[in-house]
């Protein structure tokens, strides 16, 4: 028991600082991938709703593929496939071979790409939930597309999609654990290394689980209050 406490402490043999750093890195990766997912997701939703036919098709296929392929496979594909792709591209065009992209970037991009596919569906649904009459009214008032987006869509969609985005965030947080396979020392990877080098896997995986529970609980609370705040005028 004493032994366990030393291992989890802040002393020279303790893993606490590394585990906490892992937590921060997990949060950072999840936040980055969420941001990538939101930007790409908005573009995809726009393509599905307003784009020309070929773009609509492309966005549809993107959604089907990225939601039908395991996240682990996407991460492995980008992590192992991207370097060889970059290398062969630079050979064909005669560029100087650039360095390999850092694991943080690859990890957050791959989780972000998957997240975008889910977020696109959410945004599309959110725009669909706005009454059609409002768009007609906007057009009758002479609103352009941009004005319509800014004044009609944006204020309402953020409110409508917030709970669903909270769900995606939870999935992002958990998917970020898969980035451990690339060697990025986020929470999962740190607990794996700790478990391997101390031979106390039960202890360290247990602690990692507890830390993930803290992260998911805190963020779901944050989304709960965010939702209450964004609906503050909507309560009778």
């Amino acid at each position, binding site marked *: 028991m004493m032994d366990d406490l030393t291992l989890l402490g802040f002393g020279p043999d303790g893993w606490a600082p590394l585990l906490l750093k892992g937590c921060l890195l997990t949060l950072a990766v999840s936040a980055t991938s969420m941001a990538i997912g939101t930007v790409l997701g908005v573009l995809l939703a726009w393509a599905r709703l307003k784009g020309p036919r070929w773009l609509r098709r492309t966005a549809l296929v993107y959604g*089907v*593929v990225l*939601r*039908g*392929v*395991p*996240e*682990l*496979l996407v991460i*492995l*594909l980008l992590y*192992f*496939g991207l370097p*060889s*792709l970059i290398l062969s591209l630079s050979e064909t065009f005669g560029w100087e071979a650039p360095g390999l992209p850092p694991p943080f970037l690859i990890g957050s991009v791959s989780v972000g790409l998957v997240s975008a596919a889910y977020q696109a569906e959410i945004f599309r649904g959110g725009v669909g939930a706005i009454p059609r009459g409002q768009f007609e009214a906007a057009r009758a008032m002479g609103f352009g597309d941009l004005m319509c987006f800014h004044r009609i869509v944006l204020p309402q969609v953020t409110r409508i999609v917030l709970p669903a985005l909270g769900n995606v965030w*939870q999935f992002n*947080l*958990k*998917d*970020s*654990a*898969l980035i*451990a*396979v690339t060697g990025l020392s986020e929470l*999962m990877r740190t*607990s*794996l290394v700790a*478990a391997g080098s101390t*031979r*106390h*896997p*039960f202890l360290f*995986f*247990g602690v*990692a*689980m507890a830390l*993930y*529970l803290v992260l*998911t*609980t805190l963020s779901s609370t944050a989304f709960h209050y965010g939702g209450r705040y964004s609906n503050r005028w909507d309560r009778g």
Partner: protein
Amino acid sequence: MEEHLTFIGSVTAQLVRAVPVTLLILAVSGVCATVLATGLTAMSVARSPLPRLIQRTWTFLFRGTPLILQIFMIYYGFAMVPWIRHGILWAAFRDPVFCTCLAMTCCCSAYIAEIFRGALAAVPRGEIEAGRACGMTGFMLLRRVIAPSLIRIALPSYSNEIIMMTKSTSLASTITVLDITGVAQQVIAHSYRTLDVFCAAAALYLLINATLSTLLTALERRLDVDRAPTPLAPIPPTLEPLS
């Protein structure tokens, strides 16, 4: 070019041989998780607080942590627990396929139970009261009134969860199971042709998911008795002028 095609062909053949492993994990954990979720749903509406507390804790624990961590906990963590290591359970816990199935059963049962719970809340109360009024009790009420509605309401979300589970089976490869992803990684270790191999694996997963989703949508249609009847053929406009 031709060499490339032969390579992709042979890789696909190797990957297809791993499909049964993926499907086995999916089937075992899918069935077990559904059964367990049914139990958890029953616990969530129990009168005494203890089963409700257990259900809530179960959901909190397994939905709040990544599945990969649960798999590692069961495969590596439990192996260090003396009474498992030296007990009769060791035969099961040293098998990575069993560990994956166990972790996925626990994790997905939590998700499916939430789906069932939501569907149960959506079953019209009047129907249940009417059943009671007709003298149905317990099991008969469940079988004749609650279950038919509940299954129809839950099916779309349930299908989504099954697709999610198919994707989750790939995590088995992280604890040495040679499922589709595992074999793909093995082939890459020999051939270094990452893109081809992973794309072939992705295509297989897509195929499995497309098949599952088609089957489940067909089931949904089949069960949808309330669906509006097929519209009648439009009445052709009469050509003769009305006199």
